[in-house]
């Protein structure tokens, strides 16, 4: 019960936040600009992959910063005390925050990629099959990268004592870790989407599991 209640609460808190407002509009806009600009992704990288990297890099970083800062602030202001003295499972506090932010950011990224692809199909003239395939790969990479970045944001939020340190760790650590799911696409694997999802899910599970374990042990 506590997870679903906290999740809907966090969702309510995040989806109307200023950062999310920026992402709801900013990510689709960025995707559109990418389509118009049409950069050369290079021989080993499809345009869809490049687009996914850019969208998820910004979305993932913002999600990680948002999560880390939110957890650090709430931890330092002692906002968690009122939850922790109630009969709830501790893990639901951080898991609900992760899920809410990830859901918001995933929808924003999905919209962004879809906007770009629709634009590509309508203006540049592509085939529906090609568009769908590109969307699929882009989404897999984006969602995996953003999941890893979000989980890293939660972990950094739990361990970091200050917002400044948290932000530095997110930018220099979380961002690098979130690039893990890109490896299958970059190394030219035969089925990169499946490997990307698997790698992203595994890295997310490890980071989030570690964050929850540390949060459960934490004394407030």
């Amino acid at each position, binding site marked *: 019960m*506590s997870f679903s209640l906290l999740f809907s*609460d966090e969702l309510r*808190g995040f989806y*109307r*936040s200023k950062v999310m407002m920026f992402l709801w509009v900013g990510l689709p806009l960025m995707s559109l600009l990418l389509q118009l600009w049409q950069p050369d992704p290079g021989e080993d990288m499809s345009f869809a992959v490049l687009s996914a990297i850019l969208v998820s890099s910004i979305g993932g970083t913002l999600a990680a910063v948002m999560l880390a800062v939110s957890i650090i602030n709430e931890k330092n202001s002692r*906002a968690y*005390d009122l*939850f922790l*003295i109630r*009969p709830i499972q501790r893990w639901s506090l951080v898991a609900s925050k992760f899920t809410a932010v990830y859901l918001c950011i995933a929808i924003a990224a999905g919209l962004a990629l879809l906007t770009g692809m629709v634009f590509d199909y309508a203006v540049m003239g592509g085939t529906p099959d090609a568009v769908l395939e590109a969307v699929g790969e882009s989404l897999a990479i984006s969602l995996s990268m953003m999941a890893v970045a979000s989980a890293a944001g939660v972990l950094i939020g739990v361990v970091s004592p200050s917002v400044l340190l948290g932000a530095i760790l997110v930018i220099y650590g979380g961002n690098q870790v979130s690039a893990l799911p890109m490896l299958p696409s970059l190394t030219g694997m035969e089925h990169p989407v499946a490997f990307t999802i698997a790698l992203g899910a595994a890295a997310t599970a490890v980071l989030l599991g570690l964050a929850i374990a540390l949060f459960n042990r934490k004394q407030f």
Partner: protein
Amino acid sequence: MSSESELVVLDHVSKQYRDLTALDDVSFSIRRGEVFGYIGPNGAGKTTTIKIMVGLLRQSRGTLTINGHRMPEEKEQAHRMLGYLPQKVAFQEWRTVDHALSTLGRLSGLSGHELERRITEVLDFLGLTKVRRKKIIQLSGGMVQKVGLAQALLHRPPLLVLDEPLAGLDPASRYQVKQIIRELSRGDTTIFFSSHILSDVQDVATRIGILNHGHVMQVGTLEELKAEFTITRDIAIALAADCSGWSDLKSLEGVGEVEQPAPRRLVVRVAGDADLDETGYRVMRELLDRGCRIRSFTPVTPSLDEVYLRYVGGEQT
């Protein structure tokens, strides 16, 4: 071991932070239905005790039970009967008063109409109805403190743990919160609260615990604490009319000093290890023999401030 009458039992509880001993072998119990005031100087370990009690910290040694449930092992059961107001209450910044109470109430097991009714009742009780739809960050510090109290009362917990509940409140709100504490205790709620305002503790607490440097110095009713030691060993005498020769009282056995702070008022200080009762008897007999009319004859009882200062050695609260 806890008896039926004891709701909370701390048994040799210690808390160690690396080189710092925050609590050292603390043992006391809180009886059902009482208002227990917990006083001590800054850094004495009051908040540490409270955080261990509510399960936010783990003790390094010793045991703590709430209604027989060991903390922190059985904290889920203990948390069902607990309401807690932290020293600095904080809420997530996007929450309104109503939303915060709704979420915290649900997490405490309330739902549906019952939850709605309790939120309305508690807000009305605390005079917060007008700010129900407001964001908590828009409220004053005193108001936020009251919202904190509201969330603690919402689910009618049998045990209320309040960390400095009167700090930061204006005099009217302090009076109101003290009235609430009295009212709740009449309704069988057990209340444990810390405070550095000794007069407030004296006003509402049925028993008092004094903590200093992580040690519980004394636990008891105010009368018991006063009786533990006679602080000044003075006898205050009020006379109906001026009485000559009072300075001769000094020659009586057991009398140290005699002062006249005001006309028809005498203060007799009992000397060294002389017995207070025997000396008092001698002084009274001497005054009566001299034809003095005595209006009152009272051993001076210390205030809580004096008791407190004796225990903590004059450290600031």
